[in-house]
C-alpha cells in the first residue's frame, strides 16, 4: 500500500463523512460548511487526477463563490432550521431503499466490468495544465464557451429581475 493509496482512502473518508454531515445536520449553516469541506476534498482529488485547473476552479467557484452565496441566502432568510415533522412516513424508507439499489448497481458494475480495474498511470507532465485547457477552450470549444458567457449573463439578469422588488407593488402590499 503506497502513500497515494493511503491519501486516497483518507480523503475519500473525509469526503463521504462531509457528505453525510451535510445530509444529516439539523442546521443549514452546518450543512453548508460540510459541503464546503466536501468540495475542498474533491478539489484535492482533482489535483491527484492531474487536473490542477479544474481543482482551482472548484475551490474558487464552488467552494468559494457558490457556497458563500448559499450561506448568504441561508442567513438572509434566517431559515437555518425547520421543525421536524414527518409527514410522509414512507418517503424516507423508500428513498433509502432506492439509494441502496443504486449503490448495488454500481457495485455490480465495478465487480463485473474488468475495464474499470485499469490502474491510472502517471500522467504526462503537461497533462491538464491550464495552458492545455485554455488551448482547448479557445479552439475546439469556442462556441460553447461563448454560449456559456451568455448563459451566465442571462442567469444574472434573471436573478436580478426575480429578486428585484416591484416598487409600485411593494408600496401597496407591505
Amino acid at each position, binding site marked *: 500500500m*503506497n502513500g497515494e493509496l493511503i491519501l*486516497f482512502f483518507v480523503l*475519500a473518508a473525509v*469526503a*463521504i463523512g462531509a457528505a453525510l454531515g*451535510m*445530509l444529516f445536520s439539523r442546521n*443549514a449553516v452546518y450543512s453548508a460548511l460540510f*459541503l464546503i469541506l*466536501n468540495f475542498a476534498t*474533491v478539489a484535492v482529488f482533482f489535483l*491527484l*487526477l*492531474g*487536473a490542477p485547473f*479544474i481543482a482551482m*476552479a*472548484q475551490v474558487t*467557484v*464552488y467552494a468559494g*463563490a*457558490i457556497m458563500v*452565496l*448559499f450561506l448568504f*441566502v*441561508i442567513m438572509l*432568510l434566517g*431559515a437555518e432550521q425547520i421543525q421536524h415533522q414527518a409527514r*410522509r412516513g414512507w*418517503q*424516507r424508507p423508500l*428513498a*433509502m431503499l*432506492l*439509494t441502496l439499489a*443504486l*449503490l448495488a448497481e*454500481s*457495485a455490480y458494475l*465495478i465487480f463485473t466490468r474488468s475495464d*474499470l*480495474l*485499469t*490502474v491510472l498511470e*502517471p500522467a*504526462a507532465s503537461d497533462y*491538464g495544465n491550464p495552458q492545455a*485547457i485554455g488551448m*482547448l477552450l479557445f479552439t475546439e*470549444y469556442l462556441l*460553447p464557451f461563448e454560449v*456559456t458567457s451568455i448563459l*451566465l449573463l*442571462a*442567469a*444574472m439578469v*434573471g*436573478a436580478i429581475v*426575480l*429578486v428585484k422588488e416591484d416598487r409600485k407593488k411593494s408600496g401597496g402590499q407591505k
Partner: protein
Amino acid sequence: MIPISYYFALSAILFSLGALGVLIRRNAIIIFMSVELMLNAANLLFVAFARANGALSGQVLVFFVIAVAAAEVAVGLALIVIIFRNRQSIDIDEMSSLKG
C-alpha cells in the same frame, strides 16, 4: 496505482448521498446543496475518466458544468428568496400547488 474503480465507487457513493439528500430533506436550500453534491460526484467521474483516457475533453466538460452550476445556483437561490418572501417558509412540503 489507484484503480479507476476506486474513483467510480467514491463517485457513486457521493452521488447516492446527494440523491438521498434531495429525497429526504425538506429544507429547499439543503435540497439544493444536495443537487450540487450530485453534480460534484459526476464531475469527479468525468475527471477520472479523462485521466484514464488521456483526453482533456472531460476536464473541459467539468469546466462547463461548473459554469452552468453557478448560473443555476444564482437563479435557483433567487427563486428560493422569492418563495420565502411570499410564503415565509422554505419547507418544500409547504409547496404543493401542483397537486392533482
